[in-house]
């Protein structure tokens, strides 16, 4: 099996590959099955293209060329696989899943884009989320294993194994190359959205230096989410509400990504240190992404059941549209966080809710809300809880309590940048210098 010997693609051929690879893979799996081997066959076809096209020129129909070459390679790989199994007397037999025997009309792949079917297949519930993410980036995103490994800061062999295992799990599951059945579509779409959300967050978690490659993950997540929005069939009557919620949430997720990504240019200082949103230079925010995200969420919200991605997008939109932290519509944000809490008791959401409440009604209201989180083991040891408490205590004038909380937060984060920031805050309060008024309980960086 060939793993990413094609290396870096900087030319426009690389871009062509990114676009064509999932389509070639989709065409192959649709026709012949064997996602695992087909994936390797496509990689080898790309490799062949890398050596032949520069000499012979790009063929008139690159996709057809790739499909032909990949199909030939698939036959070879399949035979090697079959011969090995025959020697080992482990002929591949699999029990046909019962739902293959039900009428096929509902799950026809015929009218669906191959890459969309692939996306659902890669986010199959038989896989763990890390496996879903890796396989999605490789099979649908067209990223090399090397690129994915670098983005997730793991050695390449580790990522190779993860992807191989993921492909084996798909094979073992007997999942057909088809869109999910209507009755499971809502759940499966939720899984796809979750994977895209996780990919985006991986990329957004860091912004600079050696982690630049991780930023590409956010771009990739946005690209895939956009593509999904373009391709996902519009609801048919009788499909039930699942799909309506799904479409709204898909739009919500895309809006959330755009509205978050828009702030990236202002997120880090020259040394790579993270800058809290309240202190960011808002002129650096990306106006185009903001207007697209705002337009999208504004159009989506009135349409029907509002899910968590839409609520988070609505919150992000309020932040992005505010000229300053002070001028933000905090009461509205507080209300949105309350709605978000109805969708699940998430301690980070409760923390953000407390911050919004403090901004809307004053630090004492926020502190009272924070107290309810101390007993929550999921976040009681998290530096963010202590950092927020520190900010709010400082805003009430309790400098001693604030400094103690800053130090408690510093002791609980593993990030050196965070530690430096938090220690500086504590030092500022313990050894007062001529002070800059700090009326804003700065939020933890998003």
């Amino acid at each position, binding site marked *: 099996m060939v793993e990413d010997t094609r290396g870096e693609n900087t030319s426009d051929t690389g871009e062509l590959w990114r676009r064509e690879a999932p389509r070639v893979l989709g065409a192959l799996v649709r026709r012949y099955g064997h996602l695992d081997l087909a994936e390797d066959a496509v990689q080898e076809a790309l490799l062949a293209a890398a050596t032949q096209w520069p000499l012979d020129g790009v063929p008139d129909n690159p996709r057809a060329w790739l499909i032909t070459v990949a199909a030939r390679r698939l036959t070879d790989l399949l035979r090697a696989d079959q011969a090995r199994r025959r020697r080992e007397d482990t002929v591949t037999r*699999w029990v046909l899943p019962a739902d293959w025997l039900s009428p096929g009309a509902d799950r026809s792949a015929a009218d669906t884009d191959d890459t969309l079917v692939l996306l659902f297949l890669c986010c199959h519930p038989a896989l763990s989320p890390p496996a879903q993410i890796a396989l999605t980036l490789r099979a649908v995103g067209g990223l090399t294993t090397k690129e994915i490994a670098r983005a997730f800061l793991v050695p390449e062999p580790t990522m190779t194994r993860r992807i191989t295992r993921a492909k084996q799990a798909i094979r073992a599951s007997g999942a057909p190359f088809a869109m999910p059945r209507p009755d499971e579509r809502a759940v499966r779409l939720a899984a796809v959205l979750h994977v895209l959300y996780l990919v985006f967050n991986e990329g957004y978690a860091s912004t600079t230096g050696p982690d630049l490659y991780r930023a590409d993950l956010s771009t990739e997540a946005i690209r895939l989410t956009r593509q999904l929005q373009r391709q996902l069939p519009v609801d048919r009557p009788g499909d039930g509400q699942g799909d309506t919620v799904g479409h709204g949430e898909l739009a919500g997720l895309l809006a959330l990504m755009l509205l978050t990504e828009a702030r990236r240019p202002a997120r880090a200082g020259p040394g790579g240190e993270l800058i809290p949103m309240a202190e960011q230079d808002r002129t650096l925010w990306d106006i185009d992404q903001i207007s697209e995200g705002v337009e999208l969420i504004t159009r989506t919200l009135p349409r029907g059941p509002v899910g968590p991605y839409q609520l988070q997008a609505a919150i992000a939109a309020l932040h992005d549209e505010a000229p300053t932290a002070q001028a933000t519509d905090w009461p509205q944000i507080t209300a949105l966080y309350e709605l978000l809490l109805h969708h699940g008791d998430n301690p980070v959401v409760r923390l953000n809710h407390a911050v919004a409440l403090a901004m809307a009604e004053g630090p004492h209201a926020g502190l009272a809300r924070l107290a309810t989180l101390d007993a929550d083991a999921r976040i009681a040891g998290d530096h963010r809880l202590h950092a927020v408490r520190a900010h709010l205590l400082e805003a009430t004038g309790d400098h001693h309590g604030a400094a103690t909380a800053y130090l408690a937060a510093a002791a609980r984060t593993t990030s050196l940048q965070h530690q430096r920031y938090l220690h500086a805050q504590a030092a500022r309060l313990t050894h007062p210098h001529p002070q800059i008024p700090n009326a804003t309980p700065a939020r933890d960086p998003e």
Partner: protein
Amino acid sequence: MKYMILTYASQQDYDAMSGKPTDRPAWSNEDFAAMGEFMTELNRDLDESGALVETRALAAPAHTRRVTSPHGQAVVTDGPYAETQEVLAGYWIVECGSFDEATRIAARLAGCPGPPDAAARAVADVRPLVEGRAELAM
């Protein structure tokens, strides 16, 4: 009356045709092109005479799923054929007046160009298609 003409090949024959030497000599580009021309002409001829209902070639035997139901449960076996096993490789369905006429059509395949080794082993079966259930009971 409808007849089916069936031709056979093993995975090794497919290899030889694709230009890969195995136990059998690989086809040259000229061999392969000549076969293509012959088949195109034969099929055009059959089509124009009104005899051709359909003709197809099958993908390599490695791409085969065999479905069985040993315990009343559908079980799929991937790639059930051995490399040297001759299996269906292509077929024609022809509409013609008699078995003999269909046989004459099949005999034209003997003129198909190719390496001597392949030509010597080539087989075509002609079989009448059943037109209805009643015929099966005969």
